[in-house]
């Protein structure tokens, strides 16, 4: 074999893997189609009576209309969705919703009070994860059919628990108040599941979009409903693609194969500043990032130790460095933007003061403590920063990084010493967070619910009573004052080091506008998106 042949063979061998790369790829998504690239492997169902995962709630916000809503046009104003108007009885126990006339499901059938009655009852009867939102009103499998009833074009809902009307109305803007077409759901019922199996991957709706397909770990495709009550959405299709790797999301955006990407990290956002085709925007979100201190672990039971630890976190330092743009300091359990939320940030890094408090508490030389934290960004960076600053006062924090779900499992079983996690509200009312941060009147292992105060063994029957009073308060001003007091108590005395509230960072093509995420996933609307 000649040398030339050998060399040719060698070169040929090396070139084969790249031989196919001889084309110019097309770019840009169609003008009436909007493409999101995001991590969406949290979806486990798209039945609005069952879904309770963040991406699932966002998708269903756009697929189903709800009894009441906060609409994209004014995210602070409670307005009717399927309901045209509503009244509340004087004692705050009976809610009457008048259904809009001439509303139609995408099947062409009219939306009736009976559909609303069915949708609310269905959530309670199926008793899936989200059912607690409605069962807390006193509705149960045996009573809900008597308490939620359609009559003509109205639905009357009676509650048996004491709750502020604003709280109940806010619940009617949440995922569980999505209106499902009864006839279609029941036509697809199997073994008494009220259509649950079918609705996991199909829709029966009067909302702005209909569900075309959900391919797990791949994509969700929605199609516009031209007959939507607020007008046909500008985008005929919305495609949400599961792209797990943020770096790949960035490339898709830069090549115009995605219009919006949602999970970019700071190191990917920075270089985008020089790309004139792309814009990055920050929107306030409602997750509270905090550390739970288990008071069952002796040093953490001491209020002075907890006070000291709250002074051993470099809140400002973190938000000005590796958390820049993604978080703001918020040391109250209510995120800013919520009714009653206060910007109360009494703690800052103060090692000397913390040392003095530790000495007073009998821990002059500090102590050792384990901290469980999810093994991904930003938890890893935050936990390392906390480890370093607490170390300055002699508190030896050993970080135990683990899968998020493993941290939660340990936390629910009160097996942690410190757990670093986040908490997102369930609906747009302060009670949703108060009910977990300021609720523990049964500290036994067999307690009915496991709110965050319980998980950290913070037994607070008195504060729990105050929290329940605030939940029932009819006067909005008084109610706000009650939540202010509660927030200060939890921040000052509670077993929580409340640190940050997050921002939603969305990177988009400059040609795609109109997607302005709200503080919760219930407020992320696709119908307002436009492309030029």
């Amino acid at each position, binding site marked *: 074999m000649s040398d030339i042949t050998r060399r040719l063979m060698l070169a040929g061998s090396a070139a084969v893997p790249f031989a196919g790369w001889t084309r110019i790829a097309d770019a840009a998504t*169609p003008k009436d189609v909007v493409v999101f690239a995001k991590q969406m492997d949290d979806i486990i169902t798209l039945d609005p009576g069952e879904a309770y995962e963040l991406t699932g709630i966002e998708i269903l916000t756009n697929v189903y209309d709800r009894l009441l809503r906060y609409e994209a046009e004014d995210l602070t104003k409670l307005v009717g969705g399927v309901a045209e108007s509503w009244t509340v009885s004087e004692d705050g126990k009976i809610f009457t919703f008048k259904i809009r006339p001439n509303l139609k499901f995408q099947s062409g059938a009219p939306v009736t009070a009976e559909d609303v009655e069915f949708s609310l009852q269905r959530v309670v009867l199926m*008793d899936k994860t989200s059912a607690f939102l409605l069962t807390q009103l006193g509705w149960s499998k045996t009573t809900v059919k008597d308490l939620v009833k359609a009559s003509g074009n109205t639905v009357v809902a009676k509650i048996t628990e004491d709750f502020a009307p604003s709280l109940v109305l806010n619940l009617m803007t949440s995922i569980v108040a999505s209106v499902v077409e009864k006839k279609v759901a029941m036509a697809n019922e199997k073994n008494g599941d009220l259509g649950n199996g079918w609705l996991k991957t199909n829709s029966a709706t009067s909302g702005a979009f209909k569900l075309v397909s959900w391919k797990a770990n791949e994509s969700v495709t929605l199609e516009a409903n031209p007959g939507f009550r607020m007008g046909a959405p500008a985008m005929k299709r919305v495609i949400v693609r599961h792209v797990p790797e943020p770096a790949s999301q960035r490339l898709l955006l830069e090549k115009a194969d995605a219009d919006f990407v949602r999970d970019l990290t700071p190191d990917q956002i920075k270089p985008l500043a020089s790309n004139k085709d792309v814009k990055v925007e920050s929107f306030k979100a409602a997750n509270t990032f905090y550390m739970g201190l288990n008071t069952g672990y002796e040093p953490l039971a001491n209020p002075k130790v907890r006070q000291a630890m709250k002074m051993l976190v470099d809140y400002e330092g973190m938000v000005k460095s590796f958390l820049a743009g993604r978080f703001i300091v918020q040391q109250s359990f209510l995120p800013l933007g919520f009714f009653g939320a206060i910007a109360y940030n009494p703690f800052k890094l103060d090692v000397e003061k913390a040392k003095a408090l530790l000495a007073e508490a009998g821990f002059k030389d500090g102590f050792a403590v384990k901290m469980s934290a999810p093994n991904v960004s930003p938890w890893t960076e935050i936990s390392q920063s906390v480890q370093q600053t607490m170390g300055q006062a002699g508190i030896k924090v050993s970080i135990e990084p683990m899968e998020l779900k493993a941290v939660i499992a340990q936390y629910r079983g009160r097996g942690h010493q410190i757990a670093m996690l986040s908490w997102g509200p369930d609906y747009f009312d302060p009670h949703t967070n108060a009910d977990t941060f300021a609720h523990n009147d049964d500290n036994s292992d067999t307690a009915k619910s496991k709110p965050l105060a319980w998980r950290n063994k913070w037994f607070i029957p008195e504060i729990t009573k105050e929290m329940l009073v605030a939940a029932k308060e009819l006067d909005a001003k008084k109610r706000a004052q009650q939540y202010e007091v509660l927030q200060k108590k939890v921040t000052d005395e509670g077993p929580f080091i409340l640190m940050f509230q997050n921002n939603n960072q969305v990177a988009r093509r400059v040609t795609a506008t109109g997607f302005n995420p709200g503080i919760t996933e219930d407020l992320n609307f696709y119908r307002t998106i436009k492309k030029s």
Partner: protein
Amino acid sequence: MARSLVKRAGRSLISVALTFLGLTCVTFFIGRVIPIDPVLAIVGDKASRETYMRVRTEIGLDQPIPVQYWRYLKKVLQGDFGNSVITSHPVLHDLWQVFPATLELSLLALIIGVIVGVPMGVVAATHQGRWQDQVIRFFSLLGYSMPVFWLGLVGLLLFYARLGWVEGPGRLDVSFDDLVTPITGIITIDSLLAGEHEVFWNAFWHLVLPASILGYLSLAYIARMTRSFMLEQLRQEYVLATLAKGLSPWRVVWVHALGNIWVQVVTVTALTFGSLLEGAVLTETVFAWPGLGLYMKNSLFNADLNAVLGGTMLVGVVYIGLNMLSDLIYPLVDPRARDA
């Protein structure tokens, strides 16, 4: 003859059954001791105690682990692998969806690995110690030691974002989604069967980069192994004898020496294919490729035990199948295996 065949088939069947039993047993028990709560994966963190306990009972976790295992085994024997928590579909349905995506990727990667890797290994061996050998060894070592995750991102940055030679992450552009009815699940084949040439080319340009990167990794391994097999052969006396008889060096290397290592190459290829099928998690993550690796990873992190068990069984089937296939190929490539 017939009796021995039956005996061999019987032995194989028993071995396969025992392998499966071992697989289900080990995976099942590991799945039950990992610190992720499968009930939480279903009901979420905020569920009430009643809901939590009800679901726990529904999925049988209130029973002792051996009882749970026995129940699972009985269902599997009836072909029911249960439903996946994260997709709500039967696990078999899910596997049917995700496996073809991985198969498509792995097949092209393997073809690249074999077509390029084997000649590279041969050339390296015949030029031992010379520059050709050094270049090939360096090239292989690079492929062997470079993180596939990094390689994937750099590949995307260069060939997709900068040069625009290939399509980006995913199996198809959004405008081609759902145009072809899946028959085999392998989009390139299905689109050809449907006569959708545009879809075929789009799928191909999406496939070529991840497949090339996986192909590079497998060719690195195949080339290194082929080189060492060939070096062993080239030291044999028959090589010297055939050269002394006047046969051309080309014929001695590419026909006689290479002919003698095919069995080993087939074994290496089968193992490479197996690891490509089960181990493309990182490539699938970077390229948003909805295949088996991504499915298994998500299932594991969500304590979706039915899916993890189903996926593990599938990987087991693949390895057993590849072993059997190798056994069938040996006699075709080496007459000595025919007589054995």
